[in-house]
């Protein structure tokens, strides 16, 4: 396994800048997720690491060695795509064995058997080894695709939205298994997704990308608890963070178009006007709460309930465990956990606290 370093990478496709001066390092054995919307530059980054594209500016290092001039085959990376590219007429076993039988490797059959068995066990597909891949379900095919990457024991795993074609339940269970396998093997993995839950739940660290720039790199806790910009804040977390314009006044923060007036602690110094971020779990409904509003909407999700509270012209979203006795249009009292507030510069969206 390897560590990877990208140094001042810029990549253009004709007039479009896909990546603009991007630098970061991935540690040996790390599960590193590239998260961002379509067009952010995630897949381009992955393809550059694989050597499927060549950067215009900058360098890529594996274990401190420059790999810029190495063709994909010599970088020893394994790619797993969203679309499973298996040979439908071959058995699962032969699909798994295929990369090992290539003329470049010529692995002895006994060793192939061992590696295929071991990968199949990890992915719970031992019972499918004799089947033709064309007859498998989507989830099984994606397991085989991942298995085919694992048997090679590459320096790096590159995964491009491998779970996004699966239905919700399958995605959930494969996500957990993939994470477990990665942790057991300590394989350096770069995983691309637009799904914030995948990123939060699987990553050791996340790089949030947008329009060819890195907005933030950090652990899931860093990204969720201290989002660097409003874009990052809104990208992670369901339901979404409340983001409200506010002005400062005598040690208080007044949320515009509402009656909300928050006490600021003395050590916070803010400009006159800020965007205030409040996570839904930090809007705590309680009968003796400091603030009041009207229930605009109730969304019961079973495990928890989302409550939309109308205060003046603003709506605050709160999330409470289990069910609620509240009713639509009823008055409701609540507190806001002020030590969990997020402040952002209004124009740039950059974090202030």
């Amino acid at each position, binding site marked *: 396994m390897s560590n990877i370093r990208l140094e001042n990478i810029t990549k253009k496709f004709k007039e479009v800048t896909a990546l603009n001066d991007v630098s970061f390092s991935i540690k040996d054995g790390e599960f590193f997720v590239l998260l961002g*919307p379509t067009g952010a530059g995630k897949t381009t980054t992955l393809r550059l690491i694989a050597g499927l594209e060549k950067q215009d500016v900058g360098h890529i290092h594996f274990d401190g060695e420059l790999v810029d001039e190495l063709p994909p085959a010599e970088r020893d990376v394994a790619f797993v795509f969203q679309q499973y590219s298996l040979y439908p007429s071959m058995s699962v076993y032969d699909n798994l064995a295929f990369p090992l039988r290539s003329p470049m490797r010529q692995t002895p059959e006994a060793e192939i058997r061992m590696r295929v068995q071991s990968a199949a066990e990890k992915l719970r597909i031992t019972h499918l080894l004799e089947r033709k891949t064309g007859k498998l379900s989507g989830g099984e095919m994606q397991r085989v695709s991942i298995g085919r990457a694992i048997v090679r024991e590459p320096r790096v795993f590159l995964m491009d939205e491998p779970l996004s074609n699966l*239905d*919700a*339940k399958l995605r*959930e*269970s494969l996500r*957990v298994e993939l*994470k*477990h396998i990665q*942790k*057991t093997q300590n394989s350096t993995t770069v995983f691309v997704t637009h*799904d914030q*839950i995948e990123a*939060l*739940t*699987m990553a050791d660290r996340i790089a949030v990308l947008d329009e060819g720039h890195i907005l933030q790199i950090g652990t*899931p*806790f860093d990204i*969720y608890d201290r989002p660097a910009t409003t874009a990052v804040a*809104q*990208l*992670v*977390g*369901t*339901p*979404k963070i409340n983001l409200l314009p506010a002005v400062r006044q005598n040690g208080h923060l007044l949320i515009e178009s509402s009656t909300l007036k928050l006490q600021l602690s003395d050590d916070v110094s803010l400009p006159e006007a800020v965007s205030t971020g409040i*996570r*839904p*779990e930090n809007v705590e409904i309680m009968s003796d709460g400091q603030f009041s509003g009207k229930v*605009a*909407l109730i*969304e*019961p*999700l*079973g*495990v928890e309930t*989302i409550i*939309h509270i109308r205060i003046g012209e603003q709506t605050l979203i709160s*999330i409470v*465990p*289990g*069910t609620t006795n509240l009713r*639509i249009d009823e008055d409701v009292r609540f507190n806001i956990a002020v030590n969990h507030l997020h402040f952002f510069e209004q124009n740039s969206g950059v974090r202030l606290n």
Partner: protein
Amino acid sequence: MATIELKQVEKKFGDSFAVKPLDLTINSGEFIVLLGPSGCGKTTTLRMISGLEAVTSGNILFDGKDVTWLHPSARDIAFVFQFFALYSHLSVRDNIAFPLQAQGMSREDIKKRVAEVADMLKIEHVLNARPGGLSGGDQQRVALARALVRKPAAFLMDEPLGALDAEFRESMRAEIKRLHIDQHATTVYVTHDQIEAMAMGDRIVVMSNAVVQQADTPTEVYNNPSNLFVARFIGSPGMNLIEGHYADGTINLPGDNRYSVPSGWRSVLETQLASDRRVIVGFRPEAVQVDGTGEINSTNYATDLHGGYTMLHLQLDPDTIVHARAGRDMRYQLSETVRFTLKPDMVRFFHPETEMALKQNGMKN
């Protein structure tokens, strides 16, 4: 607004059932969600209500009047699809006005009504634009406005949020529900997304294999699933379902674990299980209480942060993983031992053969 009744409505394509005989009453003003995986019969049911699909047998009544063989246009319904189906060469205003013009309403009344719905959906500022230039969210608002403008007897919606990005979906979901609260229009809404169904429905009709599995409020469907399918399908992740054998007040579970059945359930298990005493224990991730002295023993398979909470994935044996919701600072090493108990009032039991939930006295059927 109409009450809609389906009486023994069925649909066959050739020899195979798309919908097996189905009885359902949708109350006037109710928001009903038809929920299930693809191919379960939910969309066919919706299309039969609309008249776009003929029933094979059975009757459909709107406010007591049999509409089974009425043409869709004579049923006074409005349809909202996943794909917006707007006229690209017309302005937003003309798209919304179109159904009214077709009805022959006066220009003055049309203008008033279009302004009303545009205000309701907050799309006044795009009335003169062409739909093609709008965001997905705004296009779906226009499609909704066009459905609302006529004040039909019922709204039928077929995965209207399916084509939107995740970030729009959450807010559009709330907008549609709030709109329903203000309008109280009878609405039948089809989705495969259980979160959408839970958040929006007054009642959820869970379908699988052409059959209604359960029709109840979101809370009931979540807390008291009628069978294993519903237990698995609702919730993310679904209910933990673990098979064991019942004997003398306890159930043996994988990994040499024994689970003490809450006393209120013992007589139920004793009378309702087959002679082999096999039973499936069901519990939601939030029913798990990590507790150093808990009677169930597991090892940590994976732990992940979901933002406001942590999900633990706990292995009882190589084939059995329990998902447990925990505080966000809960952290375990790979393979570390974790002991837990189950909150007694949150445990359910299922019959492994019939796959049906066992019922305590006094529980709803």
